[in-house]
C-alpha cells in the first residue's frame, strides 16, 4: 500500500491568506507538526505575487492594481512576478522534507528537486490530455510555450514548492498590472506573449472548471510521488500560524522589502 499524504483543497483565498497558509504549512512541517501535504487553491480577488528578490516598483504597477482591485503580495520564494487570475488558474503547493526526495534520488540537487516535484503537474496535464515537458529552471512547457511556473524555498530541511497552472489568460489585465519589460498594451505585445505563454483553454479547447483541474492535479501528484492523497484540513496550529503570518503578508514593510 502506498504512503498517505494530506490533500488540502482550500478553495479561493486572498493573496495574503494563501501565502500565509503555504508558509504556515512549511513551518509546521519543519516542526513535525503536520504531514507531507499537497495543497490546491485559487486566488480571490485576482492578485499579483512577486518573487522574494524582486523590486516591487520595477515589476508591478501598484496604482493600477489598486484601481482594478488586484491585490499584490511578496512571496517567500524567489522567481518571477505572476498574475493570478481569479478565474484563470489553479495553484499548487507542496511541503515535503528533502530527505524524502533523497530516498528515491540520493544525490538530488535543488534543480532536480524542482523537476521531481513538477512531475506532479506534468502527470496532471497528461490526465487532461496535454503533453508537456519540464524546462529548467522552473518552467513547464507545452509545444515550447509556458503553461506553468514554480518556485521553492527550504526551511530546516523541508521544501515548500508552489506553482501555478494556467487555465486561461486575461492578458489585457496582466499587461496592466505587471510591468512586462516596459511594453505597452498593444496587439503586437499581446501576440508576443501569446507566442511564449499558453493555457489549458488553448491546449485542450475546453473551458475547464477549477474542480476538474484540481482533480487532475490530485491524480497527477499521486502518480508522480507514488503516494495516496487523502483529503484533510489545516490543523489548529497551522491556522494560528497562518493568521499571524497573514499580517506580515499584508504589511507595507514586507511588500516593499525590495
Amino acid at each position, binding site marked *: 500500500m502506498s504512503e498517505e499524504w494530506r490533500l488540502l483543497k482550500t478553495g479561493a483565498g486572498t493573496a495574503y491568506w494563501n501565502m500565509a497558509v503555504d508558509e504556515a504549512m512549511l513551518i509546521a512541517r519543519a516542526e513535525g507538526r503536520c504531514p507531507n501535504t499537497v495543497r490546491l487553491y485559487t486566488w480571490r480577488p485576482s492578485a499579483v505575487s512577486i518573487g522574494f*528578490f524582486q*523590486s516591487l516598483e520595477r515589476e508591478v504597477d501598484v496604482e493600477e492594481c489598486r484601481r482594478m482591485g488586484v491585490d499584490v503580495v511578496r512571496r*517567500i520564494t*524567489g522567481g518571477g512576478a505572476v498574475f493570478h487570475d481569479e478565474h484563470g488558474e489553479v495553484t499548487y503547493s507542496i511541503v515535503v522534507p528533502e530527505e524524502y526526495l533523497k530516498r528515491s534520488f540520493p544525490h538530488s540537487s*535543488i*534543480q532536480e528537486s524542482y523537476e521531481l516535484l513538477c512531475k506532479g503537474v506534468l502527470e496532471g496535464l497528461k490526465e487532461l490530455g496535454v503533453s508537456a515537458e519540464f524546462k529548467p*529552471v522552473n518552467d513547464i512547457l507545452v509545444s515550447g510555450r509556458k503553461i506553468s511556473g514554480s518556485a521553492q524555498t527550504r526551511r530546516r530541511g523541508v521544501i515548500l514548492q508552489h506553482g501555478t497552472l494556467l487555465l486561461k489568460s486575461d492578458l489585457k489585465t496582466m499587461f496592466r498590472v505587471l510591468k512586462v519589460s516596459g511594453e505597452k498594451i498593444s496587439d503586437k505585445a499581446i501576440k508576443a506573449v501569446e507566442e511564449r505563454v499558453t493555457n489549458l483553454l488553448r491546449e485542450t479547447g475546453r473551458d475547464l472548471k477549477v474542480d476538474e483541474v484540481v482533480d487532475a492535479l490530485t491524480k497527477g501528484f499521486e502518480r508522480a510521488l507514488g503516494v495516496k492523497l487523502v483529503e484533510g484540513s489545516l490543523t489548529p496550529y497551522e491556522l494560528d500560524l497562518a493568521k499571524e503570518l497573514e499580517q506580515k503578508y499584508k504589511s507595507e514593510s514586507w511588500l516593499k522589502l*525590495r
Partner: protein
Amino acid sequence: MKVDAELKVPGGKLVRVELEVDGGLIREAKITGDFFLYPEEAIFKLEESLKGVGVDANFEDLISNLLVRMDAQLLGASPLDLANVIRKALSKMKS
C-alpha cells in the same frame, strides 16, 4: 554616484544590480531579479559584503566565497553572472 545594470542570464534568470559608488568604493548595493537563492536571507549578507569593496575587486571570488561560507546556493544565475552585472554597472561610471 548611482549606477545600475541588468542581465538576463541565457537559460537562466534576470539579475539587476543598483550600486552607489563613492571614492572608488561601493557604498550601497542592491541585487534584485527573478533568480533563486537558498537561503533567501543570504541576499542581505551578500549586499552587505559588497559595501566598502573597491570597484576593481574580484567580484566573482568574493561572491563565490561568501556563498560557500553561508552554505548558500544560487539557481538561475551564477556568481560569475552576478560579477558580470556588477562590472557592467560599474562600467557606466564616468571617471
